[in-house]
């Protein structure tokens, strides 16, 4: 029975340590840091040019859509590396599986293309 509660004790200790860590860090900062609010401190860059407009300024929407496409395809390639390492041992099955995987991704690209995402107007 004692060992049973011991494992709960460990969990409790971890919890308390976690809460304490954050509380101490935030608390110490709140207590020690001098507070002298200046408008300059809220500026995006502390020195150099004053930024014009706000952070949510307009950027070309097409950068962001291309960014999305890049992220998706970039990350899917994570599966290609381990596959390339072992596919010789797995034979045809692995080739077919990867073909299906890439095929589905290609269908996604077809969808994006037909939606006009790829056009650089």
């Amino acid at each position, binding site marked *: 029975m004692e060992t*049973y509660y011991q*494992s709960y004790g460990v969990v409790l200790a971890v919890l308390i340590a976690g809460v304490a860590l954050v509380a101490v860090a935030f608390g110490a900062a709140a207590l020690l840091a001098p507070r002298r609010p200046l408008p300059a401190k809220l500026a995006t860059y502390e020195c150099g040019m004053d930024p014009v407009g706000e952070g949510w300024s307009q950027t070309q929407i097409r950068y962001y859509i291309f960014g999305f496409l890049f992220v998706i395809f970039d990350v899917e390639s994570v599966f290609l590396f381990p596959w390339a390492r072992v596919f010789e041992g*797995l034979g045809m099955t692995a080739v077919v*599986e990867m073909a299906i995987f890439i095929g589905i991704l290609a269908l996604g690209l077809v969808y994006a293309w037909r939606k006009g995402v790829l056009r650089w107007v």
Partner: protein
Amino acid sequence: MRVELAPIAPELLLVGAGIAVLLGGVLARRADPLAHLAVSLAGVAGAAAASVMLWSREGATALAGAVAVDRFGVVARLVLLGVAALALLLAHHTLARDGELRPEVPALILFATAGMTLLAVSADLVTTFVALEVLSLSLYVLTGSSRRLVSLEGAMKYFLLGAFSTAFFLYGVAMAYGATGTTSLGGIAHALAGRTETPALALVAMALLAVGFGFKVSAAPFHMWTPDAYQGAPTAVTAFMSAGTKVAAFAALLRVLDVALQPLGWDWGPVVAGLAAVSVVVGSVLAIAQTDVKRMLAYSSVAHAGFVLIGATAPGAPGIDAALFYLLAYALMIVGAFGVVSLVSQGERGTSLEDHAGLYRRSPVLAGLFALFLLSLAGIPPTAGFIAKVSVFRAAVEAGHWWLALVGVLASVVAAFAYIRLMVLMYMREPVGHREPDPSPVPRLVLAIPAAGTLLLGVLPGLVTDVLGKAAVLRW
């Protein structure tokens, strides 16, 4: 190496149909919503047939232990596919009426359904995680699909809290893997059963998985996203996600509790009981305070998550049996209830309690259907909700949690007030304003299906007890 695909044939068919609809929508010269609906329904029907074929193959895992082939999975899948079919029909009608129907909507419903059915059969925490994400990502987009601000706001809140809960779930998976060296449910159970003391990591894993699942099934105190997402989403989508997410996430939760963490039964019992008690109380009390029908039903869904959890506190077959029946009944009545709301309201207008005043005068059929679903949600005989509540309470009492059953009964009485107040509004008050409910007969016929199911299960629950009894065995 031969890969056997039959165990995931339902998911493959759903995803295939989804891709077909998605590409058909952009490749065809003129998008035809009816064709999309037909392809989607064909996909769902094919998936249902493929699931039924797995009924006789009880007792295996497939694809390197990733998915379970068992009767529990077949029943859960069929419930989910039924929900998806009803949702597709409702969404086709109401979104076309509101000018918000795009081919992406049925496609996303199919993808989400594939995630749900995969979640219900996953025998490995990696599969559970991927399935959970397939379903969640599709639902985030569906919630925001109408492009109205409320809808987008609901989607954003749903997304932020959903991603937050995913992180907890994944941390739980990592801890379970750390404690046992495996992620398969059977393997975790095996590793935990051999120990005399419980490793602290396994307890952390249990707690984190409970938080992750708590968010997904919207059990209090992890329910904050539920009212916002349910109110913001187009009502047909709400009908789909309220029923589907709950059934799928509970199926996976039951697998994790009754298989992987079965050796820790003494540890998770109180946790689940606590979540259940808080959920029924919070959901029932807050349901009364709502002025919007969709929000009221959202809080009621929190309470219903609690009722299913009450059933889940009973370990083994009796608990699974009761929870499964409750999920079936809940899926029928909540799809029906949101279905009626989707016909009474239009877009984001017409969902307040006031808008339902005098509904009986304007549409006796809709008022009657809604009354039936509300009675079932309240757990009043002769409806499925009554039998479902009795069975979860009985399972809890037999497992020795009589206090939980007592809390459940008291909370049902409190919640009944909210439902009955709405019925009084519908039947005894004069209509306010000139808003007319959707007059078309087809969606009414669609809603007759869950209505018939609710009544039938209430009068003759014996029809399904045999099937559910056979399905209430979980080994992975």
